[in-house]
């Protein structure tokens, strides 16, 4: 992936065509909510548009957008949890950490169960699993996106896999080699 020239505005038609689906899927897996994922994806693109002049070009554009997405999602979760905690707002339970139930793509029973198991992982494990398995990002890139060491990413990945293997035992043993 090429880094965009600094003096140029992001071409958002191109960004949406190229990365829109990946960004939406990232947020869909993280939020477990189809409509929230859509709103957050658009928020992320708006933030990227506003912040692009400050982008130093240390990484490729999409890694940078991933980072914005992860941070924006964390911020939203914190906000929703705080609201929920203070009783200001009734936060739909599926927004905080449960399974997607409104994603039209998840018709299949197994897919729904897997999505639910991923959605119920602790946030940092979930981010790691989603980036690695659903977004095909290497541990090195994930470390860059999440701002931690590669070792931490590997450790989180392993622990998340252990949790998932336990939760998805029936599917894992069915598929087992």
């Amino acid at each position: 992936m090429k880094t965009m020239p600094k003096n140029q505005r992001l071409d958002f038609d191109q960004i949406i065509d190229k990365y829109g689906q990946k960004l939406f899927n990232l947020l869909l897996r993280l939020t477990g909510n189809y409509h929230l994922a859509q709103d957050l994806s658009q928020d992320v693109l708006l933030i990227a548009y506003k912040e692009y002049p400050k982008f130093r070009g240390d990484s490729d554009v999409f890694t940078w957008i991933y980072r914005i997405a992860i941070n924006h999602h964390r911020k939203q979760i914190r906000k929703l949890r705080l609201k929920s905690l203070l009783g200001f707002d009734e936060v739909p339970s599926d927004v905080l950490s449960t399974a997607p139930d409104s994603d039209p793509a998840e018709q299949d029973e197994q897919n729904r169960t897997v999505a639910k198991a991923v959605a119920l992982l602790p946030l940092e494990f979930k981010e790691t699993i989603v980036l690695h398995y659903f977004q095909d990002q290497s541990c090195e890139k994930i470390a860059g996106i999440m701002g931690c060491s590669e070792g931490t990413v590997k450790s989180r990945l392993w622990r998340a896999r252990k949790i998932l293997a336990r939760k998805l035992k029936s599917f894992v043993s069915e598929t087992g080699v």
Partner: protein
Amino acid sequence: MNCHLIENFLQKNPGAALSDGLKQHAENCSTCKKLLQEQNALSGILKAMPQSDLPPHFGFRFASRMAEKQLSQKKWRWEPNWLTIAMPAMALIVAFSVILMRYELFPDKPKTPINTPSASVPVNMTLAGTNSSPDAPQNTNTQIYPVWPGNEDAVDQDNLTIMASLYPDNYGTGRVKILLDDQDVSSESIIDKQHIAYMPQRLDAGQHMVTVIIQQPDGKHKSVSWSFYLLEGRS
């Protein structure tokens, strides 16, 4: 039973292929074999998860939000230019000129009322019995201007005639009341469409309060109050 060879490898090298040696080990070690099968199956399941399509009209919705955001930013952005400085300055000059014209260029015109709360009529005060002229302008509010004594003036009894001016002309003398120390003295006063005058017969020395109340054509009441000090020994 407690072999961690494959586990350690998988933990440190997620997604990496096993070496021949490790493959051979996994064939013979039941713990490692089970773990490897389980992890391979899990990877297969996770990688097989379908990708969702972008929601319909995603691009259009994004474009609308971006346009909205740009518009709101534009609306609130402070862009200093000569107009933003000149306009308030001109407004100040005009306001100052109006004040000067009012007080300096027309010295014969009475000064601005001292206290003009609108509709501050005493509870038991009735302004009935209007005698308004049929050709009176109905939409002009009459202002009350104290003439004598001036607000907080000190006067003696010889000079004491309380006077106020009405401008523009008041049509209908029944709409005006004059109170001295909250006593209605309208019936003892001379009230015409331009003036109100009252000459007290006897008044104690000290502070006194005059209130003139007028009912405007729109039905609202306007009152003006001012005070004067009556000197001792001359009453």
